[in-house]
């Protein structure tokens, strides 16, 4: 077969792009549901919002098998240490979604016990606002991570020089 015809039957890409495509199409989240946002996080797995079309319905219980940490809910100071441990146990590349107002900034709880934003202890890729965010909003956040990764933007721990 001449080269031109052959090219029509092949897809050409670099190895990096292929790997990034595969990673973004199967980014498995970790079961890190803390509070009210966890219920809406469960809703995106449900049949109406269907996270499975992105290859993400496999919520892994072990952080060693997970790529995405969706911090859904308020993080008390007592929970901050386990959160960091879970984040450390995840293998690179890994992404973090701060879901909801409480994870992004402490939300309505500006007091002695709630961590004012998980970006104090883990580098966050995307913040999803509202209390709790609609399932569509969370999916928008996740899709933006996919797009960013496909475009070659490195995950947050390489960009943000904080809490790495």
């Amino acid at each position, binding site marked *: 077969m001449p080269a031109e015809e052959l090219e029509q039957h092949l897809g050409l890409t670099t190895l990096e792009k292929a790997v990034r495509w595969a990673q973004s199409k199967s980014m498995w989240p*970790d*079961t*890190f*549901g*803390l*509070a*009210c946002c*966890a*219920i*809406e996080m*469960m*809703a995106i*797995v*449900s*049949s*109406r919002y269907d996270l499975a079309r992105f290859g993400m319905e496999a*919520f892994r*219980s072990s952080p060693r098998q997970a790529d995405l940490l969706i911090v859904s*809910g*308020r993080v*008390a100071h*007592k*929970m901050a240490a*386990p959160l960091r441990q*879970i984040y450390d146990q995840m293998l690179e590349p890994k992404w973090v979604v701060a879901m909801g107002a409480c994870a992004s900034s402490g939300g*309505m*709880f*500006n*007091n*002695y*016990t*709630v961590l004012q934003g998980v970006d104090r202890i883990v580098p966050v890729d995307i913040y999803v606002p509202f*209390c*709790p965010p*609609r399932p569509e909003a969370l999916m928008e956040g996740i899709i933006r991570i996919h797009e960013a990764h496909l475009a070659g933007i490195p995950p947050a721990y390489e960009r943000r020089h904080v809490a790495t």
Partner: protein
Amino acid sequence: MTIAPETTRIPGPIPTVLQVPEERRESGDVMQINFGPNHPSTHGVLRLIVDLDGEEVVGIEAVIGYLHTGFEKSMEQKTWWKGITYAPRIDYVGYQSNELVYVLAVEKLLQIEVPEKATWMRMLLSELNRLHSHLVFLGTSALELGAISMFWYCFRERDLILDLSEMVTGQRMHTRYFQVGGLAEDIPEGFYAECRKFVEWMPQALDDYLTLLDRNKIWLERTRGVGKLSAADALALSQSGPNLRASGVDWDLRRDQPYLAYDQVDFRVPVYENGDVYDRYRVRMDEMAESTRIVDQCLRRLERMKGRPWIADDRKVVLPPREELHTSMESLIHHFKLVTEGFRVPEGEVYVTIESPRGEQGCYIVSQGGPRPWRVHFRAPSFAALEATAACVNGALVADLIAIVGSLDAVMGDVDR
């Protein structure tokens, strides 16, 4: 009713900690495992320190506090009105019940009269929320025991309920729709037809669930006879709600100490005898059917009340309608005072209890006479339910532990507040 020391399964000397007996520990086979705050069961951040001898659980201690949010102290800093936003996030699955108990407590101190339409709508939304809570319980508990498809079925109905909630209030969860004095807004016109459709669909969905689970041999084997809690133990451990009714105690606050308009609707209270996981599941399934009937009755009553007021008229507590602000000076002043300072609640203390989907939810309020609470305390039914873990788990296997903790239906936001 006193505890019979021979037949109680509550461990001693610490009632909430099952301690490994000395002879087991000496045999050298006991392993301590940490069911850490992050575990695949979707009950939130509960930590169980479990001692295992092979598969058998010989020691257990529950460590909580991983979701302590300081609600009670935060609410002391804000006005009474802003407390309504804090309240539903406590028991975030049965969110309407927290709002309701807080609003009822403030109204009791204020001695304000709530219009009938608001009472019936509150009842309708509370029962829809009971359905929501039991659906989430069923979906997640079945998921943990391996009946994975139940999750999708239950969440399909749950989304229908949240659609109704969004139609009325604009928010799926944590609606701040219950206000002191009534409701935040009028009921939109399209709601009645949609709710009617839901009420007609729901019994068929419940039939689906029963078909999937109730004669499934694996489900029955894993839930029958597991995690028994006797009636005397349940009362001694301050249990309430479905956990208490599954142990044989016929007690439902909606019927026995009625609030809202529960004495004007017709519903059955399911009570089962054995106190095991299966009975707790059956109580909640039956309650879902009864809630659908209550929603139906409320809907019929509300359809006859269109056009009536939905919030009390007391301008010292309730915001005036916006149209009045352009014409009336007093309304403007009232609006200003209510938004900046907030309404003042007379001095006193009050304790109001309602039947939330988890049991007896109580709100204890102390007022100093000012615009902010002095003390707000929520009596959490999940707190008491988790205290019963050690008693239920006495002698169970590890796999049963998951079933038992799931069946107690504890929401960690409610436990830790």
